[in-house]
């Protein structure tokens, strides 16, 4: 026993002493990270990684020759730790995922028959490849071959399909694709993608102000993946319930099916999935990037502000909304009547967004409770200005100060702020204007018990800027239209109340710069409309009275339309920390424009507060279209009727504020989504081929 102990003592002590002395004597400086990385490796020096031992592997990691998951023995946990040492994203919080832009594949036409090396790269080297579409997938699968993780396979349509669960975001496919169709992006980067000329975009997506990937969400609806569809919309538009109800859907104008048949009812499909989520009883989870600790003040809780705050939050920042009203929603709540967008729907939607971790200060008004400067002083890294356009233009005629004369937005918001909806209204009312808010006013008046309601508009029905559906609906509800009528004065009953509205009859003259024919008054055609209430709803402008008290007002430039001067690409104002969006940036516009603006501003703010260079989107496609994607004819379409929008019967709806437009059924949604041609830039799935495939099957 003793000898054994002594021998071991000798060996142990000798080894220990030699090693510890040697470690001092032969000390060589190394990057300290090498030791840290090595600490997390298995230390078995097994060589399983292909490096000469753990030390070499650690050097490899530090020198960037290999990734953090190099050690096969130590497993996942060690990989995470090593990634932390290296400052590489460990791939848990914001995983990089590969994304395929082309959804054309086989259906895109060929320009020649290719014979040669079986790789996309080689094929692309010959006259840009065989596809006519300049960004079409070649389908030879260079990306499939490049993927070490078996996450890409060639789909049945001849373009690669990515398995998001297997994808680790290594970026091999991105480099492999000669056409640059695959891009590896984090969720944040994906949220901030804006349409560009060289993107694979369907005409509808090019048109959408919020740039929603419409073909994708319709495809997902077709496949029954409603959650996927909702998430697709949410990547671009947080207010899908509201937009599903109030959006005038410019996208449908550009629907390729519309050229041969009726266009796909895109907005109803959006509303269908949005309502599906609301009625399913659970909120589909929304992922947010890891916290960055940056704070942003968002002034105004309307669609622009909410959208901006939502995207900032998903990018990991901390937005705080300041709103003058007791509830968020801005114009969508206070300017759009209950029967179009019910309050509880809006509440549900906004709650979901605020649940992501957005703080709100209600009833705090800029100019009174705070200034832009005070927010800066509070330590916000950037400020978003989204107060909208709430100041109505006045008619500028005599008698506007009479009792019974009010202004559109003012009127609508008063109605909206009284939940019991018992606003005293006159018996006969005239609303001046032809826009959506005029229609909203008349239809609201009707519901509030007004007996006879006129719309007074100085041009004809054809020129009315309001949505066609709205006009039709108000016609159904029995609104009287007084076209080609220019109000000249409000008539006093002698006690300061309205007795009537005098207007001048007009006729259409030569077209003006906007292409509309200019109304020309007919001399001596004054007519009096017998009303006791007049609402002017001609247009609005931002109310920027608070700027008077703003300390930094010298530097903040205001345009002559009372909007904040900004770079239209980045929405940055004349002071670098201030960004803007929505009506206050553009003048009165669509809700969906404001949402798009909020996202654009969020991108610029993100760049600003993370210290990046603030850039616009290169080759941006804002309000432009890719010429080659606009067709004259669309061969292969078999006519199929568009799903009509279900509505409440007229008798029911004019007696209450309940919602007029109803949601389509699941079967109708399936039908409607099947009508989609699943367009890409220049290719699409013709119905004829679908029918053939079905027959064949």
């Amino acid at each position: 026993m003793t000898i054994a102990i002594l021998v071991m003592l000798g060996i142990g002590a000798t080894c220990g002493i030699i090693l510890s002395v040697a470690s001092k004597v032969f000390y060589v400086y190394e990057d300290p990270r090498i030791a840290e990385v090595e600490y997390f490796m298995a230390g078995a020096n097994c060589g399983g990684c292909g490096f000469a031992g753990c030390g070499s592997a650690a050097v490899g990691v530090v020198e960037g020759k290999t990734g953090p998951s190099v050690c096969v023995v130590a497993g996942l946990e060690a990989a995470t730790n090593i990634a932390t040492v290296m400052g590489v994203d460990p791939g848990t919080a914001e995983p990089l995922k590969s994304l395929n832009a082309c959804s054309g594949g086989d259906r895109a036409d060929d320009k020649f028959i290719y014979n040669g090396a079986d790789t996309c790269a080689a094929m692309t080297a010959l006259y840009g490849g065989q596809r006519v579409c300049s960004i079409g997938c070649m389908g030879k699968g260079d990306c499939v071959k490049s993927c070490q993780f078996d996450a890409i396979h060639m789909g049945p349509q001849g373009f690669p399909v990515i398995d998001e669960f297997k994808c680790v975001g290594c970026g091999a496919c991105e480099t492999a694709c000669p056409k640059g169709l695959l891009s590896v992006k984090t969720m944040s980067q994906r949220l901030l993608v804006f349409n560009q000329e060289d993107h694979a975009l369907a005409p509808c997506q090019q048109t959408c102000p919020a740039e929603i990937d419409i073909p994708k969400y319709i495809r997902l609806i077709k496949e029954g993946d409603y959650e996927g569809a909702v998430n697709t919309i949410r990547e671009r538009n947080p207010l899908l319930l509201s937009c599903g109800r109030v959006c005038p859907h410019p996208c449908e104008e550009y629907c390729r099916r519309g050229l041969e048949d009726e266009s796909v009812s895109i907005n109803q499909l959006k509303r269908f999935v949005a309502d599906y989520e609301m009625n399913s009883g659970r909120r589909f989870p929304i992922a947010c990037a890891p916290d960055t600790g940056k704070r942003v003040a968002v002034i105004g809780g309307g669609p622009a502000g909410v959208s901006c705050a939502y995207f900032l939050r998903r990018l990991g920042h901390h937005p705080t909304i300041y709103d003058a009203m007791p509830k968020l929603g801005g114009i969508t709540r206070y300017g759009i009547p209950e029967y179009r967008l019910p309050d509880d729907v809006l509440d549900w939607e906004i709650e979901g967004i605020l649940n992501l971790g957005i703080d709100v200060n209600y009833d705090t008004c800029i100019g009174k409770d705070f200034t832009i400067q005070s927010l800066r002083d509070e330590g916000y890294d950037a400020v978003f200005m989204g107060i909208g356009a709430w100041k109505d233009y006045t008619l500028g005629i005599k008698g506007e100060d009479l009792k019974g004369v009010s202004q559109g937005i003012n009127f609508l918001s008063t109605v909206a702020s009284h939940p019991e909806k018992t606003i005293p209204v006159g018996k006969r009312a005239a609303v001046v204007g032809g826009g959506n808010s005029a229609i909203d006013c008349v239809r609201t008046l009707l519901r509030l018990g007004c007996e006879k309601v006129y719309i007074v508009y100085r041009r004809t029905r054809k020129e009315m800027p309001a949505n066609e559906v709205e006009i039709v609906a108000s016609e159904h509800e029995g609104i009287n239209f007084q076209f080609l009528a220019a109000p000249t004065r409000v008539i006093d009953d002698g006690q300061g109340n309205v007795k009537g509205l005098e207007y001048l009859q007009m006729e259409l003259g030569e077209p003006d710069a906007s292409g509309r024919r200019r109304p020309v008054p007919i001399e001596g055609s004054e007519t009096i409309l017998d009303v006791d209430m007049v609402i002017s709803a001609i247009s609005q402008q931002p109310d920027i009275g608070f700027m008077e008290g703003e300390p930094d007002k010298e530097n903040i430039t205001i345009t002559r339309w009372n909007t904040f001067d900004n770079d239209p690409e980045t929405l940055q104002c004349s002071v670098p920390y201030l960004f803007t969006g929505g009506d206050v940036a553009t003048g009165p516009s669509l809700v969906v424009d404001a949402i798009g603006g909020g996202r654009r501003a969020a991108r610029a703010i993100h760049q600003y507060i993370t210290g990046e260079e603030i850039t616009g989107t290169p080759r941006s496609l804002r309000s432009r279209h890719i010429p080659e994607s606009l067709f004259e004819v669309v061969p292969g379409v078999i006519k199929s009727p568009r799903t009509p929008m279900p509505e409440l019967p007229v008798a029911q709806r004019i007696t209450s504020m309940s919602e007029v437009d109803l949601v389509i059924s699941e079967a109708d949604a399936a039908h409607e989504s099947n009508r989609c041609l699943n367009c890409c830039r220049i290719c699409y799935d013709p119905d004829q081929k679908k029918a053939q495939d079905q027959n064949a099957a």
Partner: protein
Amino acid sequence: MRKRSFFGLSGPRFNYELATAAVGDPVAIPIPETVTLYIKQELKRTSSILKVGTPVKTGQRLVLDEGSEICTISSVTGTICAIAPFLADYGRAWTAVSIKTEGKDTADTEFAGASEPPSLDTLNRYLAACPGEPNIGPLMDERNPVHTIVITGGNSDLLIDTSLYVLKNNADAVNSGIEILRKTTGIEEIVIVVPEESVQNYSGHLDARIQAVSSRYPYAQPLMVLHHLTGRLPDERGMAPMGVCLIRAEAVAAIGQAFSTGRLPVEKTITVIDKNGVKHLARARVGTPVGNLLKTFGVEINDRDKIIFGGPMTGSAIFSEDLPIGPDTDAILVQDKSVIPLYSDYPCINCGDCVRICPANVPVNMLVRFLEAGQYADGADLYDLYACIECGLCSYVCSSRIPIYQYIKLAKYELDRIISAEEMNEQ
């Protein structure tokens, strides 16, 4: 197409065409209704100068933007009818300018005013897009001075007569071109490389040193000539550091002609080889659609045929009859679908035919495996990618029918991209 001989011990032997008396005079091709010219520059949205409807004259210099060096020379008189981006081989983004011709051919006078005295700038400005595409760029590169100008008198591929024909019949123009080059560049060392069997046709007639090379393919390939003269081949940095500038005989003739007449030449001599292998010589305006030439010689094109710009070993197949001939198109080769060899998806079986035929001693069998696997850098480091002189003989003999030459070109192109991307990153 030449098949393998029954006894496989000896490799195939190809010889270049030697301009013989049998080659007749070129057939003049009428001026087409529209010509299309390429400006070798990407079209960014719109051009600031050229618009649809702009009138142009023959010999007018066309550029996309003010001050741009890259130009083309209008070969006809007419009006511009279309400007579109064009994607050439290996991702080169060009701009195609189509001109609708008018009845009368009016010559532009800008060059006549600028041609005296001849200078490198003038050459670069007006002649870079002339028939034969003189390679002026390297002569202007001050960081990498050129010490030798090599005029490749031989044809760059089999079956083609163009170059030697020009050299033989335009000796005067070539001589004055050489003189211009001497004068403008100050380079004394100008070498004309011709196949050895034809040396006696030229020696004494031409005002430069005549260097004979074997008339066996691929000894007149540009890279092979370069190796013959310098003992080296360009590496991944390209030709620039080698101090040698290669110019085709036709380009030299064009230079000579331009300065002696004061008008920019706009006609190109082309060898047309039809489906039966019959050769015709033609002269056509640069930019004439291929279809016009083929129609003149009664060549019918069907689906799945192949039209090739250039010769059978190094040419480039095109996808439409409407594509125009360029200033560098020496030949048009048409193949019927019944004779087109198809590539297959077999891997290399290591038969070694390629290695034995390779004039550059490239270990093609290993190289192609690495290239197929996409390991371009390893291929260059371990298996002499840059020793390849791009003759295409390996693909010609490959039993597995691997498009080896395509892989090699692709690898060089991809490596080039990687290197330039890295340089971008470093900056």
